[in-house]
């Protein structure tokens, strides 16, 4: 049954869950509260074959609730999975990661490293490339964007290209677009994928109350639009109940500014 009242964060969690539903037996890594809850929801509903870690050192047979847990909580370990072994998993390709980059360009390249044109002295030093180069050439990746804007979806190339995309000028010898597996882009206003012409960004659905024109305006490069773009499906009551069990401290309410409702109110 479709829920009548839900938050935008909960809508995004349910969309995030769809990213993992046809993955089979892979490690689902959702970085951040909404992606992690999406992976947890998928593992408990549409794809019980998923694997997930405790974000520290063990692989779990069922996802941990997020945040502080009671003293008598026993997590369901199935194997040790320290960081060095994560790379064995990454390079086995049995993984799908969902992360929130600071910049995404028209080639599906992303940036979490630094901003500015001078690499020797960046305007803003961020995290560093972390594991993005390896993730992007090894396994499936999806993006999560809590603030869809031209600052994220940049007109040019990313300031630091951390992950490989569909850029012909950067394609390594012996590789083609089929070797790159970029899946969904889930934002606060829409869902997109990279199945437009030549793996360009394509609009899949707009969230309730959002127009296609708004998506175009907030994206710094051309986005492929099909006729009759559907509206993103609303969560079901069952999904909302499961999300609440995985997020008992309601951290999802703190992920988007002012925790907006899933259905955008009509402007008066």
């Amino acid at each position, binding site marked *: 049954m479709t829920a009548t009242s839900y938050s935008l964060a909960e809508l995004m969690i349910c969309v995030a869950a769809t990213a993992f539903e046809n993955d089979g037996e892979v490690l689902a890594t959702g970085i951040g509260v909404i992606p992690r809850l999406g992976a947890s929801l998928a593992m408990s509903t549409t794809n019980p074959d998923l694997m997930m870690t*405790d*974000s*520290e*050192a*063990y692989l779990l047979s069922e996802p*941990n609730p*997020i*945040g*502080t*847990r009671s003293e008598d909580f026993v997590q369901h370990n199935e194997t040790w999975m*320290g*960081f*060095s072994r994560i*790379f064995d998993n*990454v*390079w086995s390709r049995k993984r799908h990661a969902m992360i929130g980059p600071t910049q995404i360009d028209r080639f599906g*390249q992303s940036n979490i*490293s*630094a901003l500015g044109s*001078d*690499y*020797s*002295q*960046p*305007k*803003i*030093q*961020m*995290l*560093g*490339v*972390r*594991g*993005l*180069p*390896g993730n*992007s*050439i*090894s396994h499936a990746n999806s993006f999560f964007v809590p603030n869809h804007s031209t600052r994220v979806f940049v007109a040019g190339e990313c300031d*630091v*290209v*951390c*992950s*490989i*995309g569909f*850029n012909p000028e*950067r*394609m*390594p*010898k*012996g*590789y083609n677009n089929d070797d790159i597996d970029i899946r969904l882009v889930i934002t606060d206003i829409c869902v997109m994928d990279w199945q437009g012409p030549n793996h360009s960004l394509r609009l899949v659905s707009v969230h309730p109350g959002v127009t296609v024109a708004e998506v175009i305006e907030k994206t710094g490069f051309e986005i492929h639009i099909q006729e009759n773009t559907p509206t993103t499906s609303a969560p079901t009551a069952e999904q909302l109940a499961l999300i609440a069990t995985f997020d008992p401290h309601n951290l999802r309410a703190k992920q988007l500014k002012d925790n907006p409702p899933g259905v955008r109110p009509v402007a008066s």
Partner: protein
Amino acid sequence: MNKLQTASQIVAQLQDGMTIGIGGWGPRRKPMALIREIIRSDLKDLTIVSYGGADVGMLCAAGKVKKVIFAFVSLDFIPLEPYFRKAREQGQIEVTEIDEGMLLLGLRAAAWGCPFIPTQVGLGTDVITNNPDLKVIDSPYDDKEWVAMPALKLDAALVHVDRADERGVCRIAAPDHHMDDWFVRAANKAYVTCDELVTSDHFHAPEVSRQVFWERSLTTAVCHIPGGAHPSSCAPFYGIDNSHFLAYNKSAKDGGFTAYCEQFIDGKTEQEYQALFGGIDALRQIPQTSY
């Protein structure tokens, strides 16, 4: 063989210009007492290899660093390390920024005596364009190109473990030993600080010896410093000191590292440092993070 040394004896063996690998990960199990000892020393022009946290930030802020070889520098719950950020944005340090897995391969190549390990990681990204010394090569076995990740040979590795004996047998009972074994194996000398000094019978039980990740022949020296990872964590003894990291982060905006150093590092022993937080007993009450 008795390998016990003091922190100042260990730091006295380090030299200007050395390449030093630091164990742990972000805000977890960093050999911070040795970092503080380096900050109090005259060492300079170091090349630091690290899954970086405040170890990298503090050494940069103290002017000890020529170059950082890294994939990230972060305090996790404070995503951007404030002093590393400052050093980068002011153009004060050289960097070799590579993928987390490439760093692991570089340590493994050094450990195994290989000049490089081929990998596809880095292809198509600015890891290649920003590091002109990083070679992309043809394979003798297929038609693809491969990144030749060079060995990251370390002059010294600094790691913190929960328990060690005086012969250099080291145990990491924390859920993850991170890449510490590879830092130790990649290094010419490996210096270990431990929270607890134990006798050799501590390791007899199979479940305990399973938590020993390198042979004692690789351990150069052991220094017993209870609480020596603070403000990073050392499970099972203490968690990440979030409130200290918040103050540390704030110091980058307020008084800067000079003021932080005056308060916490300059002229202080580890006991005097820990007394500022209520001593080792209080420090060991800091709970583990649940993710």
